[in-house]
């Protein structure tokens, strides 16, 4: 019945629904990381962002990262939704919910997921500026291990 907890979508993210679908009766806390479009970057006034993803791989990587976090910190369910398309200032680009029996682990796991997301999940963004023009935002080069395959 439920959608996958790891998804790339063009639709606005529904924080309340995501909390509802992630928190189980054995959880005492959930932490929601809510990444939003800022009105400024590197001193330039930003009007909007355009996100693009390699959706099938991004979803697989989000699942992989969440699995690592759950294993390491013993949290409950984790859900991650990343938006693509044009987002205005103040709109959420990413939401990460970590549900957990105890709160300390939720903080650690949430932090891990957002840091890893920024390093390995194939998503890109192009900033549109108030004074016109647009530029791809420089990112992280994913580490590729020799001999993995």
């Amino acid at each position, binding site marked *: 019945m439920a959608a996958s907890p790891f998804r790339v979508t063009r639709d606005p993210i529904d924080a309340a629904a995501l909390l509802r679908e992630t928190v189980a009766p054995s959880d005492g806390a959930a932490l929601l990381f809510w*990444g939003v479009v800022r009105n400024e970057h590197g001193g330039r006034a930003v009007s909007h962002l355009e*996100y*693009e*993803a*390699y959706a*099938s*791989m*991004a979803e*697989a990587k989000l699942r992989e990262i969440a699995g690592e976090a759950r294993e390491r910190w013993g949290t409950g369910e984790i859900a991650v939704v*990343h938006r693509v398309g044009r987002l205005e200032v103040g709109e959420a*680009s*990413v939401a990460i919910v970590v549900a957990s029996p105890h709160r300390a682990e939720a903080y650690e796991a949430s932090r891990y997921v*957002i840091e890893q*997301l*920024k*390093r*390995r*999940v*194939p*998503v*890109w*963004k*192009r900033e549109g500026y108030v004074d016109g023009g647009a530029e*791809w*935002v*420089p*990112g*992280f*080069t*994913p*580490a*590729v*291990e*020799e*001999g*993995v*395959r």
Partner: protein
Amino acid sequence: MPMTVRSLFFATYRDLAGADELLVELPATATVEDLVRELRAARSGLAALPPAPAVAVNLEYAPLSTRLSDGDEVAFIPPVAGG
């Protein structure tokens, strides 16, 4: 027997390729490195592709030495900037 792989391009790499996707025919023993060499030679825009770009084969990051198979999906991944 030659094989065909699907090459996908995103963000700045799509700008270089001038396309989302290219079908490339390669010798049966080709690696990712061979594909990169082929692409950099075949299309003028792609000459600007780094000689060792990050690549994913069938949704998993893969080194340049990876042997390809017919029908593989090979994505060229510019530095990522999600979040």
